[in-house]
Protein backbone atom coordinates (compact mmCIF):
# COMPACT_ATOMS: atom_id res chain seq x y z
CA UNK A 1 0.00 0.00 0.00
CA UNK A 2 2.89 2.36 0.84
CA UNK A 3 4.17 1.90 -2.73
CA UNK A 4 1.06 3.72 -3.96
CA UNK A 5 1.61 6.66 -1.62
CA UNK A 6 1.92 10.20 -2.90
CA UNK A 7 4.30 12.68 -1.34
CA UNK A 8 2.96 15.54 0.76
CA UNK A 9 3.77 19.10 -0.30
CA UNK A 10 6.83 19.50 1.93
CA UNK A 11 7.98 15.92 1.34
CA UNK A 12 7.82 16.64 -2.38
CA UNK A 13 9.98 19.76 -1.98
CA UNK A 14 12.52 17.92 0.17
CA UNK A 15 12.93 15.05 -2.31
CA UNK A 16 13.30 17.51 -5.21
CA UNK A 17 15.93 19.42 -3.19
CA UNK A 18 17.83 16.17 -2.54
CA UNK A 19 17.76 15.34 -6.26
CA UNK A 20 19.09 18.81 -7.10
CA UNK A 21 21.84 18.72 -4.48
CA UNK A 22 22.96 15.14 -5.29
CA UNK A 23 25.90 14.21 -3.02
CA UNK A 24 25.94 17.62 -1.28
CA UNK A 25 22.54 17.13 0.37
CA UNK A 26 22.57 17.64 4.15
CA UNK A 27 20.48 19.73 6.57
CA UNK A 28 21.96 23.16 5.75
CA UNK A 29 21.99 22.80 1.96
CA UNK A 30 18.50 21.27 1.84
CA UNK A 31 17.07 24.06 4.02
CA UNK A 32 18.79 26.77 1.96
CA UNK A 33 17.77 25.23 -1.36
CA UNK A 34 14.09 25.24 -0.36
CA UNK A 35 14.29 28.78 1.06
CA UNK A 36 16.02 30.06 -2.05
CA UNK A 37 13.52 28.54 -4.47
CA UNK A 38 10.27 29.03 -2.53
CA UNK A 39 10.98 32.30 -0.68
CA UNK A 40 9.68 30.90 2.59
CA UNK A 41 11.60 30.46 5.83
CA UNK A 42 12.06 26.82 6.64
CA UNK A 43 13.16 25.50 10.03
CA UNK A 44 15.87 22.88 10.32
CA UNK A 45 13.50 20.92 12.58
CA UNK A 46 10.88 20.69 9.83
CA UNK A 47 13.56 19.51 7.38
CA UNK A 48 14.78 16.72 9.69
CA UNK A 49 11.28 15.67 10.78
CA UNK A 50 10.32 15.25 7.11
CA UNK A 51 13.60 13.52 6.19
CA UNK A 52 13.13 11.05 9.07
CA UNK A 53 9.61 10.31 7.86
CA UNK A 54 10.86 9.80 4.28
CA UNK A 55 13.64 7.53 5.55
CA UNK A 56 11.11 5.46 7.51
CA UNK A 57 9.11 5.03 4.27
CA UNK A 58 12.27 3.97 2.44
CA UNK A 59 12.28 6.98 0.10
CA UNK A 60 15.64 8.35 1.28
CA UNK A 61 18.77 6.98 2.93
CA UNK A 62 21.22 8.80 5.17
CA UNK A 63 24.81 8.43 6.29
CA UNK A 64 27.08 10.35 8.64
CA UNK A 65 29.90 12.48 7.31
CA UNK A 66 33.08 13.34 9.18
CA UNK A 67 33.00 15.85 12.06
CA UNK A 68 34.23 19.31 10.99
CA UNK A 69 35.66 22.20 13.09
CA UNK A 70 33.25 24.85 11.69
CA UNK A 71 30.40 22.73 13.06
CA UNK A 72 31.97 22.51 16.51
CA UNK A 73 33.27 18.99 15.81
CA UNK A 74 29.82 17.71 14.87
CA UNK A 75 29.19 15.43 11.90
CA UNK A 76 26.93 16.17 8.92
CA UNK A 77 24.14 13.78 8.03
CA UNK A 78 24.01 13.33 4.24
CA UNK A 79 20.90 12.14 2.43
CA UNK A 80 20.19 10.58 -0.96
CA UNK A 81 16.99 9.55 -2.69
CA UNK A 82 16.40 5.81 -3.18
CA UNK A 83 14.86 4.22 -6.29
CA UNK A 84 11.63 3.92 -4.33
CA UNK A 85 11.82 7.65 -3.57
CA UNK A 86 12.37 8.52 -7.23
CA UNK A 87 9.31 6.43 -8.12
CA UNK A 88 7.25 8.24 -5.46
CA UNK A 89 8.27 11.70 -6.66
CA UNK A 90 7.51 10.74 -10.28
CA UNK A 91 4.11 9.36 -9.25
CA UNK A 92 3.30 12.54 -7.32
CA UNK A 93 4.50 14.74 -10.17
CA UNK A 94 2.37 12.84 -12.70
CA UNK A 95 -0.67 13.11 -10.43
CA UNK A 96 -0.20 16.89 -10.08
CA UNK A 97 0.29 17.29 -13.84
CA UNK A 98 -2.83 15.26 -14.46
CA UNK A 99 -4.83 17.35 -11.98
CA UNK A 100 -3.70 20.69 -13.44
CA UNK A 101 -4.02 19.63 -17.09
CA UNK A 102 -6.51 21.77 -19.02
CA UNK A 103 -6.99 24.30 -16.21
CA UNK A 104 -4.94 27.04 -17.90
CA UNK A 105 -3.26 27.06 -14.51
CA UNK A 106 -0.15 29.11 -15.28
CA UNK A 107 -2.00 31.69 -17.39
CA UNK A 108 -4.87 32.21 -14.93
CA UNK A 109 -3.09 32.22 -11.57
CA UNK A 110 0.41 33.60 -12.23
Amino acid sequence: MADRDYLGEFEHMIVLALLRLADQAYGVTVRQEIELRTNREVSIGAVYATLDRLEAKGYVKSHRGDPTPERGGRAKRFFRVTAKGVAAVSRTHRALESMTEGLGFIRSYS
Partner: protein
Amino acid sequence: MTSQSHVVQPPPLAMWLLTLFALDDAAEHILGDLLEEFTRLASKSGLPFARRWYWRQTLKTVYQLADHGFRTAPWSTMIAVAGGSALRGDAGRLVEPTIFAVLERYHVYEHHFGTYMFFASTGIDIGYLITFLLVGFVVAFVARGREMVATMSLGLFWGALTVVSFPAVVMQSGYGTALSRVTVYFADSMAIVIAGTIVRTHRLGAAARHLQA
Protein backbone atom coordinates in the same frame (compact mmCIF):
# COMPACT_ATOMS: atom_id res chain seq x y z
CA MET B 1 40.07 36.19 8.98
CA THR B 2 38.55 34.62 12.03
CA SER B 3 40.83 33.61 14.84
CA GLN B 4 39.86 31.01 17.40
CA SER B 5 39.33 33.76 20.02
CA HIS B 6 36.76 35.50 17.78
CA VAL B 7 34.61 32.45 17.10
CA VAL B 8 31.03 33.43 17.92
CA GLN B 9 28.78 31.07 19.79
CA PRO B 10 25.00 30.77 19.45
CA PRO B 11 22.82 31.51 22.52
CA PRO B 12 23.59 28.72 25.06
CA LEU B 13 19.98 28.61 26.28
CA ALA B 14 18.73 27.96 22.74
CA MET B 15 21.31 25.18 22.28
CA TRP B 16 20.26 23.59 25.57
CA LEU B 17 16.59 23.68 24.55
CA LEU B 18 17.38 21.95 21.25
CA THR B 19 19.37 19.27 23.05
CA LEU B 20 16.50 18.65 25.46
CA PHE B 21 13.96 17.95 22.72
CA ALA B 22 16.12 16.20 20.10
CA LEU B 23 15.58 12.45 19.79
CA ASP B 24 18.45 9.95 19.75
CA ASP B 25 21.51 11.50 18.09
CA ALA B 26 19.57 14.18 16.16
CA ALA B 27 21.00 16.94 18.38
CA GLU B 28 24.43 16.48 16.79
CA HIS B 29 23.24 17.15 13.21
CA ILE B 30 20.82 19.90 14.19
CA LEU B 31 23.28 21.81 16.38
CA GLY B 32 26.03 21.36 13.78
CA ASP B 33 23.81 22.64 10.95
CA LEU B 34 22.60 25.62 12.96
CA LEU B 35 26.13 26.52 14.09
CA GLU B 36 27.36 26.40 10.48
CA GLU B 37 24.63 28.80 9.32
CA PHE B 38 24.87 30.96 12.46
CA THR B 39 28.60 31.56 11.91
CA ARG B 40 28.01 32.49 8.26
CA LEU B 41 25.12 34.82 9.16
CA ALA B 42 27.07 36.48 11.99
CA SER B 43 29.95 37.40 9.69
CA LYS B 44 27.61 38.47 6.87
CA SER B 45 24.79 40.30 8.69
CA GLY B 46 26.08 40.84 12.24
CA LEU B 47 25.75 39.03 15.55
CA PRO B 48 22.34 40.45 16.65
CA PHE B 49 20.74 39.36 13.37
CA ALA B 50 22.35 35.92 13.62
CA ARG B 51 21.13 35.53 17.23
CA ARG B 52 17.55 36.46 16.28
CA TRP B 53 17.70 33.97 13.41
CA TYR B 54 19.05 31.27 15.75
CA TRP B 55 16.25 31.82 18.26
CA ARG B 56 13.60 31.74 15.51
CA GLN B 57 15.02 28.47 14.22
CA THR B 58 15.22 27.08 17.76
CA LEU B 59 11.59 27.82 18.65
CA LYS B 60 10.27 26.37 15.38
CA THR B 61 12.58 23.37 15.65
CA VAL B 62 11.65 22.63 19.29
CA TYR B 63 7.98 22.59 18.24
CA GLN B 64 8.82 20.26 15.32
CA LEU B 65 10.89 17.97 17.55
CA ALA B 66 8.14 17.72 20.18
CA ASP B 67 5.55 17.01 17.47
CA HIS B 68 7.85 14.47 15.80
CA GLY B 69 8.59 12.81 19.15
CA PHE B 70 4.88 12.36 19.82
CA ARG B 71 4.07 11.14 16.30
CA THR B 72 6.86 8.56 16.21
CA ALA B 73 5.72 6.96 19.49
CA PRO B 74 2.14 8.09 20.15
CA TRP B 75 1.05 5.02 22.13
CA SER B 76 3.98 4.85 24.53
CA THR B 77 3.68 8.61 25.11
CA MET B 78 -0.07 8.34 25.73
CA ILE B 79 0.45 5.42 28.11
CA ALA B 80 3.04 7.49 30.01
CA VAL B 81 0.59 10.42 30.14
CA ALA B 82 -2.34 8.21 31.23
CA GLY B 83 -0.20 6.51 33.89
CA GLY B 84 1.06 9.90 35.03
CA SER B 85 -2.51 11.24 35.22
CA ALA B 86 -3.60 8.30 37.36
CA LEU B 87 -0.54 8.66 39.57
CA ARG B 88 -1.13 12.42 39.82
CA GLY B 89 -4.71 11.83 40.90
CA ASP B 90 -3.83 9.17 43.48
CA ALA B 91 -0.76 10.95 44.87
CA GLY B 92 -2.59 14.31 44.91
CA ARG B 93 -5.31 12.89 47.16
CA LEU B 94 -2.70 11.84 49.74
CA VAL B 95 -1.05 15.24 50.20
CA GLU B 96 -3.49 16.96 52.56
CA PRO B 97 -4.31 13.92 54.77
CA THR B 98 -0.58 13.16 55.09
CA ILE B 99 0.31 16.73 56.15
CA PHE B 100 -2.55 16.89 58.68
CA ALA B 101 -1.70 13.44 60.04
CA VAL B 102 1.91 14.57 60.67
CA LEU B 103 0.74 17.88 62.25
CA GLU B 104 -1.64 15.97 64.53
CA ARG B 105 0.91 13.30 65.38
CA TYR B 106 3.35 15.91 66.71
CA HIS B 107 0.65 18.16 68.29
CA VAL B 108 1.81 21.13 66.25
CA TYR B 109 -1.53 22.93 66.67
CA GLU B 110 -1.17 23.07 70.46
CA HIS B 111 2.54 23.90 70.69
CA HIS B 112 3.47 25.82 67.48
CA PHE B 113 0.38 27.51 66.10
CA GLY B 114 2.36 29.64 63.58
CA THR B 115 4.03 26.54 62.17
CA TYR B 116 0.66 24.77 62.04
CA MET B 117 -0.85 27.65 60.04
CA PHE B 118 2.10 27.63 57.64
CA PHE B 119 1.85 23.88 56.96
CA ALA B 120 -1.94 24.00 56.77
CA SER B 121 -1.81 26.59 53.99
CA THR B 122 1.50 27.18 52.15
CA GLY B 123 2.79 23.80 53.31
CA ILE B 124 -0.02 22.03 51.45
CA ASP B 125 0.86 23.90 48.23
CA ILE B 126 4.52 22.95 48.68
CA GLY B 127 3.43 19.36 49.35
CA TYR B 128 1.52 19.30 46.06
CA LEU B 129 4.52 20.76 44.20
CA ILE B 130 6.86 18.10 45.61
CA THR B 131 4.34 15.35 44.86
CA PHE B 132 3.91 16.45 41.25
CA LEU B 133 7.65 16.82 40.87
CA LEU B 134 7.90 13.15 41.90
CA VAL B 135 5.10 12.23 39.45
CA GLY B 136 7.09 14.03 36.72
CA PHE B 137 10.22 12.05 37.68
CA VAL B 138 8.32 8.75 37.35
CA VAL B 139 6.80 9.69 33.96
CA ALA B 140 10.15 10.92 32.62
CA PHE B 141 11.91 7.82 33.92
CA VAL B 142 9.44 5.55 32.09
CA ALA B 143 9.39 7.60 28.86
CA ARG B 144 13.11 7.15 28.18
CA GLY B 145 14.29 9.32 25.27
CA ARG B 146 10.95 11.15 25.17
CA GLU B 147 11.05 12.66 28.66
CA MET B 148 10.15 16.16 27.48
CA VAL B 149 7.30 15.12 25.19
CA ALA B 150 5.74 12.89 27.88
CA THR B 151 6.01 15.37 30.75
CA MET B 152 4.93 18.32 28.59
CA SER B 153 1.90 16.36 27.32
CA LEU B 154 0.94 15.56 30.91
CA GLY B 155 1.53 19.17 32.00
CA LEU B 156 -0.50 20.53 29.07
CA PHE B 157 -3.30 18.03 29.73
CA TRP B 158 -3.63 19.19 33.34
CA GLY B 159 -3.16 22.82 32.30
CA ALA B 160 -6.04 22.45 29.83
CA LEU B 161 -8.21 20.83 32.52
CA THR B 162 -7.42 23.79 34.81
CA VAL B 163 -8.54 26.27 32.15
CA VAL B 164 -11.74 24.32 31.45
CA SER B 165 -12.62 24.04 35.14
CA PHE B 166 -11.84 27.70 35.89
CA PRO B 167 -15.45 28.99 35.49
CA ALA B 168 -16.72 26.28 37.86
CA VAL B 169 -14.05 27.18 40.47
CA VAL B 170 -14.96 30.89 40.14
CA MET B 171 -18.64 30.12 40.75
CA GLN B 172 -17.79 27.94 43.72
CA SER B 173 -15.21 30.05 45.53
CA GLY B 174 -15.10 33.52 43.99
CA TYR B 175 -12.75 35.11 41.49
CA GLY B 176 -9.86 35.97 43.86
CA THR B 177 -9.63 32.51 45.42
CA ALA B 178 -10.06 30.84 42.02
CA LEU B 179 -7.22 32.87 40.53
CA SER B 180 -4.83 31.90 43.32
CA ARG B 181 -5.90 28.22 43.01
CA VAL B 182 -5.38 28.29 39.25
CA THR B 183 -1.86 29.72 39.75
CA VAL B 184 -1.11 26.80 42.08
CA TYR B 185 -2.53 24.28 39.57
CA PHE B 186 -0.35 25.71 36.80
CA ALA B 187 2.65 25.54 39.13
CA ASP B 188 1.85 21.82 39.59
CA SER B 189 1.93 21.31 35.82
CA MET B 190 5.21 23.22 35.65
CA ALA B 191 6.64 20.95 38.38
CA ILE B 192 5.95 17.92 36.17
CA VAL B 193 7.74 19.53 33.20
CA ILE B 194 10.66 20.62 35.40
CA ALA B 195 11.04 17.02 36.58
CA GLY B 196 11.15 15.92 32.92
CA THR B 197 13.84 18.52 32.24
CA ILE B 198 15.92 17.33 35.21
CA VAL B 199 15.73 13.66 34.17
CA ARG B 200 16.48 14.48 30.51
CA THR B 201 19.46 16.69 31.45
CA HIS B 202 20.79 14.01 33.80
CA ARG B 203 20.50 11.31 31.09
CA LEU B 204 22.17 13.52 28.46
CA GLY B 205 25.03 14.22 30.88
CA ALA B 206 25.41 10.50 31.61
CA ALA B 207 25.42 9.69 27.87
CA ALA B 208 28.07 12.36 27.22
CA ARG B 209 30.26 11.01 30.03
CA HIS B 210 29.82 7.48 28.67
CA LEU B 211 30.94 8.65 25.20
CA GLN B 212 34.00 10.37 26.63
CA ALA B 213 35.00 7.30 28.67
